[in-house]
């Protein structure tokens, strides 16, 4: 038996689900505003159906999330979301140093063991690096970075 997931079928089903999602969120507005999105949804649904059919006729089998440790990608994603949400509450600089340090520590564990002394030295480097970015954007490029409770 061939290993792997039928990606043609999965892609087709995702396309069909997205088409349905967009179709049911359409509101009653004027024809000129809605005609193109409607046409595109129908086209996407048609392509998705073709993709599903090709999934039955000539399936392309690929091992989804095959190589590497996908938990690391998941944790990275969650950290990014938490980082961005924390920026408005805690402030850009502090939240960035915390999230950056956590990511460095977590990702480094995949390659080596990390001692407390190493981590402390990394945090200093990170504080300087984020500080440089902070100064460039806030002082040089005049971007009002979120301040939050701290900075």
């Amino acid at each position, binding site marked *: 038996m061939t290993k792997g997931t039928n*990606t*043609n079928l999965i*892609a*087709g089903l*995702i*396309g069909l689900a*997205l088409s349905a999602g*967009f179709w049911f*969120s*359409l509101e009653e*507005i*004027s*024809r*000129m*505003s*809605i*005609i*193109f*999105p409607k046409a*595109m*949804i129908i*086209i*996407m649904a048609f*392509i*998705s159906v*073709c*993709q599903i059919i*090709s999934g039955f006729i000539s399936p392309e089998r*690929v091992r*989804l*999330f095959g*190589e*590497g*440790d*996908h938990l690391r*990608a998941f*944790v*990275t*994603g969650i950290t*990014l*979301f938490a*980082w*961005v949400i924390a920026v*408005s509450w805690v402030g850009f600089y502090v939240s*960035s140093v915390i*999230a*950056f340090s956590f*990511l*460095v520590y977590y*990702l*480094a564990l*995949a*390659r080596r063991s990390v001692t407390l002394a190493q981590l402390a030295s990394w945090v200093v480097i*990170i504080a300087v*690096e984020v500080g440089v*970015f902070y100064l460039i954007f806030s002082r040089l*490029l*005049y*971007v009002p970075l*979120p301040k939050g409770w701290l900075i």
Partner: protein
Amino acid sequence: MELFQETFLQLLHPYIIILIFSGVTAGLFVGAMPGLTATMALAVLLPFTFTMPPLEGLVALGAVYMGAIYGGSFAAILVNTPGTPSSIATAFEGYPMAKEGRAIEAIYVATISSAIGGIAGVLFLLLLSPPLARLSIKFGPAEFFWVAMLGLTLIASLSEGSLLKGLLGGSLGMILGTIGVAPIGGETRFTFGLPVLQGGVEMIVALIGLFVLPELYNMATQGKAALQEVSISSERGVSFFSVLKRVLSMPGNLIRSCIIGEIVAIIPGAGGNIANLVAYNEAKRTSRHPEKFGTGVIEGLVASESSNNVTVAGSMVPLLTLGIPGAPPDAVILGVLLLHGLRPGIELFTTSGKLTYGFIISMGLAAIAMVPVGLMGGRLIYRVIFKTPYYFLVPTISLATILGSFALRNSITDVLIMIILGTIGYLLKQVGIAPAPIVLGLILGSIAEIGFVQSLLRGTAYPYPILKLFENPLSHILIAMTLFSGAWPYISALYKRLKGRIKSKEES
């Protein structure tokens, strides 16, 4: 001629020269890192140009683009891992040369060929853009609709994976592009009750998310950013000028590779990743000793590096004239043009001529700047890159993407949209739907929508207004090209199957 002189003189300002050199250096850094593409280099460094005037911003990004494509050759030569997909064929010859202790010679060859390719691309752009821009005046709404469709089918058929998956990604991008206020009609669509979506998905935010985040997740998953380097200490003595003489002694190879690069560059969605392989194959096919290819032959390296750098300026031909990005990095350049209120077409070459020609010529200067930057800073850049651990690289790039998305409109929501799109892009990539067709669909969507709706409005006198889309001879040509590009993957697959059958029959 006066315009050229004026434009050239404004580029000789020390600040512009510094911008060119720093842009090439920054691009070289990012491009030399395996896994980081030229698109990523542009997307990550984009925020630094937000506060610059249009010309300076474009000059800096053009230099970054040129440097990133050239930078890909460093990793290809030294670690057998193409820094960008544009340097795949460079690794075929460059790495064997490095293993023989000829790494510096290979870097010299790549530098000279890249500079020649970069300058050739600028010349092509200067020659081809104005006539094509004049032709674009003849384009009405229906033609623009078909140009967008042609771009979409070309992108879908040339991008990685199957045509259907490419089309699926493209149509998803087009729907994402319709979020917000309708360009004709003025009502909002797909806002899901969120007022923030009324302004639509900001193109640069989508670009950063879809191009950068999937690569970051990938680096986190793999747990590495670079591979083992070869030792370059045991260098055989070789002078830059002797290498220059050898490269210039193969004009046929250079001219052929530059022409191939330009042809591929004009096709939307293709770019350096295809050009370098086609040029390398042609160099091998026409060589007097094709059997030696793969063992460190300079001809192959010259073909790959000159053709991929032609595409930098060359792929701007459809971008500056029709608003269709020739390669994914051009999408970022388009975003910057639109950000400054500049619309592709004839006006770019007339009303904004000084700016446009300034940008084009600056890319030629960036190609020349690659020589001193690559030769003097190459070793240093290389050492810094391979000493930066991946666990510092991922958060650093994350920080730059967060800052870049925020700086655009000072909006945290934009950053969240960037992360959501990037995460979706990563998941879709797992099932074979690449981010490039989604982004290009997002860009082409607005061109297609305006063309489609305006055609329908102009055709209201017809019993079926949609027939307006099929009325003009120019539309017929574009429809034929669209159908051909859509059918091409199937035609070529059929041809290969038939060829295989004939071969097996002959053998039996």
